[in-house]
């Protein structure tokens, strides 16, 4: 009896590993029929209505659409800081809905990188400390953390600004620090919400070029929300959203 039980036990665990491996392969992101309904009083607002799409590893996708189309809602769901009313999102083959708060925090830490329109750096910290922030909740050694942060910042042209407080940096520099922070844990997916929205044209170009470079060199999947249709020429997939639905999907290359 006992032996059989053990055998069955090991058999299932094998199957799990196998299952996990198959997910690892092709897609970085799979979105299956997700809907998001907000309830305010008696009113129900369908922010997303059965949205499905998939992104392969190393794809640079843009999500475009008018205000209120559901772009931000989609980003929040992909960023695991909000939950869909129905449907499932797989990131790196892992179903998000199965995870609790702590799992999600660890998941965000290991698999996701965020770049926000407002940079969202911690103002009291310098560039290095901001980039190191995600590594604080891992068991990385402090000297290794510092080294990795410095390398990333230098790679993004901020080698001379390491000790600067976030508030002393220009918008373009802040966004590059945010980019370094998003990259420090070697994420599968970077979520960029209007990353150039607060930047002048030149810094904006720099940031987009960096995103393209990261995508190509590191094979990181990037999803960028933007109003600026001109930026979509850098992407290889453009998802148009309107009224909570995917209006059309263009594949550029």
């Amino acid at each position: 009896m006992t032996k059989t039980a053990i055998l069955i036990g090991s058999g299932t665990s094998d199957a799990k590993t196998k299952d996990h491996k198959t997910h690892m392969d092709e897609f970085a992101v799979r979105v299956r029929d997700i809907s998001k309904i907000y309830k305010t009083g008696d009113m129900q607002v369908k922010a997303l209505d059965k949205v499905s799409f998939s992104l392969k590893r190393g794809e640079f996708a843009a999500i475009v659409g008018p205000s209120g189309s559901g772009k931000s809602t989609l980003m929040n769901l992909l960023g695991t800081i909000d939950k869909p009313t129905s449907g499932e999102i797989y990131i790196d083959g892992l179903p998000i809905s199965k995870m609790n708060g702590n799992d999600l925090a660890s998941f965000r830490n290991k698999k996701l990188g965020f770049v926000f329109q407002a940079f969202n750096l911690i103002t009291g910290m310098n560039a290095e400390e901001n980039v190191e922030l995600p590594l604080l909740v891992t068991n990385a050694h402090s000297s290794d953390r510092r080294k990795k942060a410095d390398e990333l910042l230098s790679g993004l042209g901020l080698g001379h600004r390491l000790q600067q407080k976030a508030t002393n940096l220009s918008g373009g520099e802040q966004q590059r620090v945010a980019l370094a922070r998003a990259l420090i844990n070697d994420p599968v997916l970077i979520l960029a919400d209007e990353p150039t929205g607060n930047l002048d044209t030149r810094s904006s170009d720099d940031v987009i070029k960096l995103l393209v470079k990261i995508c190509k060199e590191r094979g990181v999947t990037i999803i960028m929300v933007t109003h600026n249709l001109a930026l979509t020429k850098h992407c290889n997939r453009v998802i148009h959203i309107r009224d909570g639905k995917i209006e059309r999907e263009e594949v550029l290359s």
Partner: protein
Amino acid sequence: MNAEDILRLSYHDLAEKKVRTALTVVMVVIGVAAIVALISLTEGISATISNELSSLGPTTIILSSTSSSGFTSADTSQISSLPDVNTTIPILDGSVYVLSNNQNVSATLIGISPQGLQQLLSDIRIYQGTLYQDSVAPSALTGYSVAFPTSASGKQSVFVGQPVTVKVLGKNGGSYTIPIIGILQPYGSSIIPVDTGVVMSLPAAETLLGKPSFNIILVKATNTSTVSQLATLLTDIYGSRARVFDTQQIAQTAKQIIGTISTFLILIAGISLVVAAIGIMNIMLIAVYERTHEIGIMKSVGFRDRDILSVFIVQALLIGLIGGAIGIGAGLAGPYALTAAVSASSSAPANSSHAAGGGLGGGGGGDFVFTSSSSSGSSAAPSIQPVFSVETIAVALLVAVLVSLMAGVYPAWRASKLEPIDALRQL
């Protein structure tokens, strides 16, 4: 997150808002300092009183007559026959003035046998001269403060071999010229105010005071465990004819009173800690509110609830530790400054000889005045030294930390439960 990083983030937050942190710490400092100071002061007072009382002898019972007729030798033999009685010492006392070399010093005339004096003081230390004989002839020893009165700024006004005039107070009191054969060394606290006394044999004192008998019997019990039993027995026997004091009982009563007062005071000091706790909670809630956006950022990059929780809890702990440490320092320094100030102000108008002049068991009253005349005659009040114990310090620090911790839990919990999506929206 490892401990070092938690500590660094917590400290970072506190250091960024220096004035606010300092003010929060001050709240804790005040509470802790008040508690440490009060505990150490009341312990000091309590220790001083027990010291004073224990010098009276733990086995001593004082039987003081409430009638003008006093006691007779029949009383002493009856008491001696009681169980657990070691010895009895009959004493007669009265208030007098000692006039010598232009000094008029109020003193207590004490009639006691040389053997009795020996038992009372355990050893008779004579500064100058010799001990008197157990005879009717009035020859006396004076206490140190009588020979070196404060009114003469500590200069000697009574000399061995020179007679002094002793003026007995009261309606039948006369003046007597008594030869002084010795001066006692200073004794400090005692049941009998030796330092302000004029000590002679019992029969001699009877003659001077015009009384046929004595008004006080000191009863020594065989050991400390039988004292209160014996005291009860004596109370039963004498009823309203005498008052019975045993030093242990006095000590206990004094301790109880001090205990009650100190508990009350410490409770009041505790209120300041409650206020501090509310202050800490308030400040931390503001901090959480201010940092909501940052908490959102931290959560989005993978900080778990417990990571956020620990950063804020450690902040509260730091406030408690720093405030507690400074508070203990202030609480230790405070009582010294206070006692120094008190003794400085009390030394000036000291008139110890007068205070002792009331004597003990005068007339039918039997009022005891416990005296403590120091040799220099500078201060009548025993100086109180604050008593600091490791326990007090440990408890104060623990209380400071616990109070801060309790105040910090709710704000920290609020911070940890913030939803990243809501937190990020807030700027």
